[in-house]
């Protein structure tokens, strides 16, 4: 799942290296709120889910681990 997440992030913002550990994507300015919208659409279609709107908060997109947790919470396998 982590590999797929990194792939989606890289397609969205190819100028950044999302595989680097210890980065906070939001604090580092790698993702803004409009990126999150596109990211949610990509994650929804890739994993066949619909991420709950109340979960679309910056902290849930700050790291690959946070995104993985978000996906699992919303039914991704």
């Amino acid at each position, binding site marked *: 799942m982590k590999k797929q997440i990194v792939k989606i992030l890289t397609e969205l913002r190819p100028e950044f290296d999302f595989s680097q550990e210890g980065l906070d994507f939001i604090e580092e300015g790698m993702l*803004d*709120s*409009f990126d999150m*919208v*596109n990211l*949610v*659409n990509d994650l929804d279609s890739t994993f066949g889910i*619909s991420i*709950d*709107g*109340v979960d*679309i*908060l*910056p902290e849930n997109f700050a790291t690959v681990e946070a995104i993985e947790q978000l996906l699992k919470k919303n039914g991704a396998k």
Partner: protein
Amino acid sequence: MDFVFKNKRISGILTILPKKAIKFEDEIENYSFSPAKSMKLKLAMGYKEHRIAELGQTSVDFAIYGLKYLFDNGLLNKDDIDALLFVGQSPDYIMPPSSNIIQGHFGIKEDCFCLDISQGCAGFEIGLIQAFMLLDQPAVKKVVLLNAEVLSPRTSRRDRNSWPLIGDAAAVTIVEECEGGNTIYANVKMDGTGAFALNIPAGGFRMPSTPETAVMEQDSAGNFRSKDNLVMQGDDVFNFVQREVPPMIEHLYEQSGIDRNNVDWYMFHQPNKFMLNKLADKLGVSREKMPANIVENFGNASGVTVPTCISYNLGNKLCNSEMQLCMAGFGVGLTWSSVMMKVGNLIFNEIIEF
């Protein structure tokens, strides 16, 4: 706050749109973002084109144009109007009220209750509830609800948060008493602690417009706007809608006893397609039942999006049949409101251009 009404109906809806349509692609250069990124946003949010009023056209002009069309075509008799409600946040003047100006323009009788309501995104639902309350009075048989918004002159064209989605429009909805009508269920909630999530800082008495308030400033996301312009805290509004609207609709099901599967259409306010799709998924209703094509084709004209959605998607079908509609508006205030009612056998349900 819950409301129940009986023996009232909507008998006609007319939507008035500006003729001028501007495509999203034609404005990409205004924004401080790469065209590729803006195009991705277009797809996600459903921005195709929006209708913008000509310079000098106001919300009152649109309302007057719509009413004149109805009078000229014999669809409404001005002597039958017992109340005139004007709902919007872009009035011609701080004083007098827009509803009085419109009453005077047409020479509508003095026994007419004119009222301006300062509401935006939930303005259709708030206006309907006010109309139903007035119709509980024996003296009031017919209410004309005018939703009108021309906010484009107060929105920065270099603000990607607001400009791509903004639209100008008006709607005239006739609300009247009837016998044996179905019960109407409605609710309203408000939270003034979030009042500034959507606001125009300057131009009122608190901060009058001056040359200083007209100076363009860049925000942290790269958008340019002045204090005379609309400010939309998009993230806050999105979170508020996702948090508050689904429970409101669940409550409306309980309140009305109407199962979600028995609702023919969900006619919701349309800030963007992404937000609506998330609401549909959360409520467990198909996205087809909750059209998201108004912001895409015409833009978001605050309280006018719901009547536009009804006119555009149902048109004449609603003149020959009756459907169960669940309507909802949410936004500035913060205000969120919903109405569950049967709508049908309308005298008119159409869109005209001004």
